[in-house]
């Protein structure tokens, strides 16, 4: 199926949020269904603010957000049903075990018990969490906690996964495991919007990359398109990214 024939996984128009200064300043973005989209930008560029608005964790000052055709501001519950949010700080409970956590998250998303159990068993297996499945999360390492949180994000089979710096604190092996799981999800038709400072991850994982600076989308495209826009030829994504951010900063 042509993924562009479906309603976009994420469609943002004129999105804005101001704190002391504009954090997101009139942003437009389209992410087609089944795409892995990565947002890059320097610290304070507005990436997390934008994703928090998409996840329903922050109210925008203006603009619209549509998730698979559902107006996320008018019907947040319907939009959230299709979405998973995962940040670099694992949102888990110290006193629950990973399995109990997955049971809880599945309950929040209204997943039937038998289906939730099967999915939880699969996720625990894929993410290598079996040895820790019955241990309280308080004793787990940061990387393992992050994997538990990722399992929680996937247990209700979201169609749009929003990831804010998901690889922070993961060792190389765990990061590879997580990347593999995410690739599988995208292959299965799921869409991913991710922020990261690890350019190698963006380079390897993304269908398209957006560069954001001072609350605005400076440019977006495939890796080759970004290189060409940056006039960086065969340079690395790092060189292209720094050139594009500099251009964006100058333009702003």
């Amino acid at each position, binding site marked *: 199926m042509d993924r562009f024939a479906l309603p976009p996984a994420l469609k943002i128009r004129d999105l804005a949020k101001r704190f002391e200064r504009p954090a997101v300043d009139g942003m437009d973005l389209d992410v087609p269904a089944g795409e892995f989209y990565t947002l890059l930008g320097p610290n304070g560029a507005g990436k997390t603010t934008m994703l928090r608005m998409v*996840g*329903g*964790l922050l109210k925008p000052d203006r603009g619209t957000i549509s998730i698979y055709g559902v107006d996320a501001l008018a019907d947040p*519950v*319907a939009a*959230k*049903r299709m*979405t*998973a*949010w995962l*940040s670099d700080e694992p*949102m*888990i*409970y*110290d*006193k*629950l*075990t990973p*399995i*109990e956590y*997955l*049971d*809880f*998250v*599945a*309950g*929040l*998303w*209204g997943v*039937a*018990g*038998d289906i*939730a*159990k099967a999915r*939880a068993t699969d996720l625990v297996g894929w993410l290598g969490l079996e040895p820790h499945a*019955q*241990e*309280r999360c*308080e*004793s787990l390492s940061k990387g393992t906690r992050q994997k538990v949180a990722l399992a*929680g994000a996937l247990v209700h089979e979201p169609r749009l996964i929003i990831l804010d710096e998901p690889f922070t604190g993961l060792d190389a092996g765990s990061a590879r495991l997580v990347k593999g799981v995410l690739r599988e999800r995208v292959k299965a038709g799921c869409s991913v919007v991710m922020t990261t400072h690890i350019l190698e991850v963006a380079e390897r994982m993304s269908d398209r990359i957006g560069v954001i600076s001072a609350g605005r989308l400076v440019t977006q495209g495939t890796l080759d398109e970004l290189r060409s826009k940056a006039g960086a030829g065969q340079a690395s994504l790092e060189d292209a990214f720094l050139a594009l951010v500099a251009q964006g900063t100058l333009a702003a």
Partner: protein
Amino acid sequence: MSRTGTIAWVARHEGRLAWRDLLWTMTAGRRRRARTVALGFVVFLLFMHGFAAVLLSPYDFGAGNPDKRMLVVLTGTLALSWSLMLPQAMEAVTRAFYSRGDLDLVLSSPLSARRFFAVRMGAMALTNMLMALALAAPFIDVAVWRGGARWLGAYVVTAVLAAVAVAAAVALTAALFRSIGPRRTRLVAQIVAAVIGAAFVIGLQLAAILSYHTLSRFMILQSDLLIGFAPEAGSILWWPARAVLGDALALIAVLGLGALVFGAAVAAFAARFAGYVLAAAGASHSVRRRIGKAAEFRSRSAAGVLRRKEWMLLWRDPWLVSQTLMQLLYLLPPAFLLWRNFAQGGGSSILIVPVLVMGAGQLAGALAWLAICGEDAPDLIASAPVPSARVLRAKTEAVMSVIAFVFGPFIAVLALTAPFGALVACLGVAIGAASATSIQIWFRTQAKRSYFRRRQTSSRVATIAEALSSCSWAGTGALAAAGSCLAIVGAVLALAILGGTWMISPARS
């Protein structure tokens, strides 16, 4: 400017942090609020002075030599105050052992740990003193106003008691560390502190119930029996009381002894403090605890899973359970009175109802904070497809069901002897708990569950409103149980407090 690394330099650093922390907790970081807070503080002090004046009106503060009765009452009051200062001090000491804060930085620096912890113990003593003096000041001022300047000695004695409480708390916590190890000390110290704090109050109340069929502690302190057994007026035991009354020799002795005890504690424990902190840090790496029973993965409603999660998190955290349920120790005397009442067929519901209502309000406030503010995965809950109103309702239900579980048996037993009193208690417990929960909802700010002990500092207004609401509902309950029409006045006052709290709450805007 003091030289770096000296005690004066560390004290300056600690003082600056403490001052900024105090400002932050009073104004929540908003400088414009400082004036309002200062004004509120003055009004509160005036109110407390009025309250103290009314409370102390039956007592004689005149000049002349104190008689044995006065010395007994004063000594009992000092002992009671000290038993309440000790838990606060133990809590501060335990927090100093276990919270990491800046300790990693300090302990990894070449700064003398002995100097640092000597200053930190001094800071704890100062905090304890300020807190004790703030609470005692209205009563002391009324005594000075009515009995003359000699009562100013009470300020000195209160400060000394606070410092000695810190010294005792350090020694006690260190003893626990050595005997049961750092892993268990945190929980046990808290229970010990609560039991010590409650034991004296409860003991006096139990004695009052047995002797006079009342919950009043002062009935025992003023009883002829106790005064008959007490040593003669010249005994050294009365020196603290004499110091309160301005006896210069006693005052110097109390001050000297206090300084000696605190100095000895600093000398003995400041150097060991670093070792305790490191041991506590090792203990904070949690042991792997396996849960035998696997999750059931039943199909439940979102509200159902939220309620279940709240109960499970509370049940599995003995530290929090003890923090919240320790205040229920104070329900022991009314339970005892209830039992006596049941055996003798008397009518003590007027005494029992307010204690139950007050206890329910306080417990509900604590649980509501944990469930509503102390959510450790706020983003997860906010990103779930569950309307926030339903989340709030589920969490409130979780709180109220615990209240029903704790207070239900008391009300059921009360119903056997005093059905009307039980009905009033039932209504009072429900309304008191609902009011405290509402206040927590109106003033909610997201925080980690581990910040539970500091919940009062996140909003002083909420804390005071919660206490006032619980007190006024308790008073209303007592009046209603007595069949007095004045209960309506109490209820109106309680509603006015709630209305006023809502008006100034962030939830309104």
